């Protein structure tokens, strides 16, 4: 003879079932972003991008003084040097990695490898690699050796991945924008359509930025693409004494 089930146990059972369903739902809600991705829209594309999928225009950051004035002057010098045909050097001219978040600009495709505990991003340009650890606490800033990629820790919440990066070296700069060692980079990854991913990147820096600065990188899937190697071994660009990028000629070109 079966005993009647107490209402409280019924309720508990229903709660457990609900929790399990929610957990399964949450797990299902995590999109699969593993794969190869190219920047969207393609730089030389002849077809206009879908405005619903294209990233919003970023503009320039609002820096605090005296950094704002120095940055404005740098931009002026860059324009002036370009007009003269003597472009000022940046790290790229010397094959120095872009780091975080520059590598996410994906001048060439990127590959994302998603596992439950880690997301790995490999950029074809320069063979740059970054690792994002999931569901772990980031070490404090003072324990992170400053570097090109810093320390990235993230978590999925529903269909959105949030990643915080600390410890990007002060001379590792996105588009030459200056920052302090306290820079925090917050990224939100989200599929805005089945095959278009947005990485919304916000720079927070209490010392340098008057307000947080946001740029969005958009990518489209490259289903059949195989990543190519990129070893920066034959760099003919060099920086002269005035900080200008020049091209080293073939030794016989001077004849």
């Amino acid at each position, binding site marked *: 003879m079966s005993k009647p089930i107490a209402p409280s146990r019924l309720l508990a059972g229903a709660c457990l079932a609900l929790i399990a369903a929610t957990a399964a739902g949450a797990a299902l809600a995590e999109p699969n972003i593993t794969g190869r991705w190219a920047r969207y829209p393609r730089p030389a594309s002849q077809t206009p991008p879908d405005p619903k999928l294209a990233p919003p*225009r970023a503009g320039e950051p609002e820096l605090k003084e005296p950094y704002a004035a120095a940055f404005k002057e740098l931009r002026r010098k860059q324009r002036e040097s370009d007009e003269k045909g003597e472009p000022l050097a940046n790290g790229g001219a010397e094959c120095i990695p872009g780091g975080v978040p520059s590598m996410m600009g994906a*001048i060439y495709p990127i590959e994302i490898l998603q596992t439950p505990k880690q997301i790995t991003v490999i950029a*074809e340009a320069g063979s740059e690699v970054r690792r994002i650890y999931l569901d772990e606490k980031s070490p404090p800033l003072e324990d992170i050796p400053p570097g090109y990629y810093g320390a990235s820790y993230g978590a999925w919440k529903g269909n959105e991945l949030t990643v915080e990066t600390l410890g990007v070296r002060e001379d590792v700069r996105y588009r030459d924008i200056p920052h302090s060692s306290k820079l925090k980079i917050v990224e939100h990854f989200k599929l805005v359509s089945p095959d278009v991913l947005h990485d919304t990147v916000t720079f927070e820096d209490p010392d340098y930025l008057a307000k947080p600065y946001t740029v969005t990188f958009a990518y489209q899937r490259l289903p059949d693409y195989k990543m190519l190697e990129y070893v920066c071994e034959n760099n003919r660009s060099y920086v002269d004494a005035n900080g200008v990028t020049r091209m080293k000629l073939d030794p016989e070109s001077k004849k």
Partner: protein
Amino acid sequence: MTRLDRLCAGIAAVAALATAAPAGAHHSFAMFDHVNRITLKGTVAKFEWTNPHVFIGLDVPDGAGATKRYTVECASPNVLTRVGWKFNIIKPGDQITVLVNPLKNGDPGGMLETATLADGRTLSDSNPPGGVFQR
């Protein structure tokens, strides 16, 4: 610059501004003259399928019985692969014709726009119009 060139340059400039600027372009291309392009016909001395750029060393007759070596910078192997090039598509000894954006400082070098091979095929360096280069 023709009206069409100017229009293309304008469209490309607007397109470039419309999105987050791609960080990490290997270097600025402002050292090259994107308007006064030159055509060079010569013999390939070197073809370097390397990063960050592919280079062609081209010996061009100077009209007085000698040759002058031009250093021609191309895009990267990655970009060129995507527009149909191969690592062995050009070999030393090949006779080719190249359309280049010369170095503004007058040195014998420049950046490739197109290469016409001995078999008549013309390959693009994949540059969008108007001197907005992302490679």
